[in-house]
């Protein structure tokens, strides 16, 4: 047994932490919280200059070839700094292109992604196709060398900043739903494509609806085979790393808050046995979530595909971050409702912010209900209930 992440990873951690301390300034954080766009182009280009947009990519594709442990440390530090990395996380799609894209697509797009010039938004969900994503109804119809796209997507996060949408479309109505799907890279400046904001409770504060009205896409921007979109999506999913973190920042913020005496108090909240028990419970849940996530990295580092392990890590972290932030906010008492715009918000409003953000954790990247179904079927061997 060994629960350390290795000297190389820890050295990288120091480097990442120093970089983030310099670039993730209070101004950057204030701006991302105010706009709801969890992305900052200056930070993104600075990451590109370090070579970190492709930190985990193979060297032959312009990456740094860092191992899963270094990449994990990178994600941990970004989360600890609350760094606005929604743009960074989109390199996942580019990773998919590396595997299934054409040579022309790779030559055209991958260097621009690594240079921090191009973002690719995910266009999977639709008003009628959420967890059942293979039910997508947005159509792509062949017309000469082009395809014509019509339909609507929801939760197209970052589409208002991105250069492309990685779009799941229906190209065949005659076959089973999984077999009639095709993926495209649709330029966001294409005529007929419209982006509308959807405002949310937390972070990101903004996602989008995108509308496609006779949008022409050249066949050269098709990714994978015609009607082979499901296979492409499955490649993309393998690059989706569980980015859900437990309530680490919120616990730290609450402990700091609880350790100080306030007006008219004779003892700090952390002297209160009830407060101590509740903080201790959050610490346990955080450690359990961290270990399940570490196991996912361990499986990946050994060359495996952490399918069920990833589902368990995601389920545990997202459920616990909701429980924990909710209880920590209660601990703050009446002042707990004050948000970070208030100068006297307890813990700087960090707990209230984390609580709002946590509401989406059990939804994105596969809802808790979907995760439980996967665990029940693939880990416990119980009968399949969905088709």
């Amino acid at each position, binding site marked *: *047994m*060994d*629960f*350390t*992440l*290795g000297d190389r990873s820890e050295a990288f951690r120091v480097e990442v932490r120093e970089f983030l301390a310099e670039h993730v300034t209070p101004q950057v954080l204030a701006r991302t919280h105010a706009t709801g766009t969890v992305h900052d182009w200056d930070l993104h280009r600075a990451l590109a200059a370090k070579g970190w947009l492709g930190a985990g990519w193979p060297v032959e594709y312009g990456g740094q070839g860092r191992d899963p*442990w270094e990449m994990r440390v990178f994600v941990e530090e970004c989360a600890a700094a609350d760094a606005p990395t929604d743009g960074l996380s989109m390199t996942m799609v580019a990773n998919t292109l590396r595997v299934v894209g054409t040579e022309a697509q790779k030559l055209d797009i991958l260097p621009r992604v690594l240079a921090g010039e191009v973002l690719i938004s995910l266009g999977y969900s639709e008003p009628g196709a959420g967890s059942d994503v293979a039910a997508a109804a947005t159509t792509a119809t062949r017309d000469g060398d082009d395809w014509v796209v019509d339909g609507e997507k929801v939760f197209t996060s970052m589409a208002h900043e991105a250069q492309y949408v990685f779009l799941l479309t229906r190209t065949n109505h005659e076959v089973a739903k999984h077999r009639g799907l095709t993926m495209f890279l649709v330029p966001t400046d294409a005529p007929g494509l419209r982006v509308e904001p959807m405002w949310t409770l937390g972070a990101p504060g903004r996602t989008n609806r995108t509308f496609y009205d006779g949008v022409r896409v050249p066949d050269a921007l098709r990714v994978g085979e015609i009607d082979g979109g499901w296979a492409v999506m499955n490649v993309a999913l393998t690059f989706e790393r569980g980015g859900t973190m437990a309530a680490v920042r919120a616990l730290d913020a609450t*402990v700091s808050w609880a*350790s100080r005496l306030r007006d008219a108090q004779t003892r700090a909240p*952390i*002297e209160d*046995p009830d407060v*101590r*028990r509740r*903080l*201790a*419970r959050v*610490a*346990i849940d955080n*450690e*359990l*979530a961290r*270990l*399940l996530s*570490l*196991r996912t*990295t*361990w499986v990946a*580092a050994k060359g495996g595909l952490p399918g069920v392990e990833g589902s*368990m890590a995601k*389920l*545990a972290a997202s459920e616990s971050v909701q429980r924990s932030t909710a209880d920590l906010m209660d601990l703050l008492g009446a002042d707990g409702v004050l948000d970070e715009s208030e100068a006297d918000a307890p813990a700087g409003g960090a707990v209230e912010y984390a609580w709002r953000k946590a509401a989406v954790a059990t939804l994105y990247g596969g809802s808790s*209900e979907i*995760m*439980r*179904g996967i*665990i*029940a*079927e693939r*880990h*416990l*061997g*119980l*009968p399949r*209930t969905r088709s």
Partner: protein
Amino acid sequence: MDLELSAAEETARASIATLLDEHSPVAVVRAAEPLGFDPVLWDVLFVAGVGDWGTSHSLGLVGLAAAMREAGARLTPVPLAEHWAATRLVAAAEGADILAADPVTLVLTPTDAGSDAGRTRLVPAGAVAPLAVALDGNELVLVGPPEALPSSPHNTASSPIADRVIRGPEAGTRVVLATGADARELHANAVDEWRVLNAAALAGLGRRALELAVAYVLDRHQFGVAIGSFQAVQHRLADVVTALDAVDLLVDEAGWAAAAEPPRAPALAVMAFVAATEAARASTAASLQLHGGYGYTLERDVQLYYRRAKGWPLALGDPAAQLDALADRLWPRARPVPTTGAG
């Protein structure tokens, strides 16, 4: 990071699993009730060398925890956790292994030499272990055997708990192993090891209770289908297995830290104990519920697991108080230094 057992640890785990499959089937567990101790099984394990594993240099806490998982899964009616924690403590204090063919136990709660009679309530394995290690005021002592072992009160978990006297003529021979701060530190460390070993036993117990539930919901048909095809059933079991997997990792981390990262070990030991308690109770409760009315009957095995998941952790008192202990380790408070004899 490496989440696998070493070759020596895996050999030990596999060998005790084989031994227990043969000698500790559920019929033996039932026959050993209500005392919860099978002396024949103890002798089998002792002859196989299992009694000495606590002081084996090749195992350590990770290997012992792996073995405890196997014992916990089978509700094995012998006090391995107490014996290993106690013999490790004696070896750490004396620099020598204890020679005992019978179980040795660890008195978890320190006694106060100034104000009590040296009697401790409900010592785990107190009814079956002739020798006991205890922190009596300022002294870490090995006492016993008493003239007669006390009898065990009937209890939820069918555990061989009993009140023990660790001072005076009733207690038997008394050897002082350490004194002062050394004594307190050694004892606290042994209680933490006991926490990790019991967390492992509870993790194994919880895993087996889940397996019983999965087998049952696949077999049991209602409304024309296996009840395991209902999402209400599936989702509850998915939560149970996720919690159990997390606890397994935490138990391993706590065992690893005892040797590799001592500053983190005390907090991790308590975390593992609390998390294992909760996961085992959630698993047995789900298993009982999903067995339907049969789960409430004594003829089904799930009741054996349900009772022990409740009873084992209470050896350290109200589990909520474990959160106090954890908080004190994570966020230490300035507190008065205990005076001599305060324990």
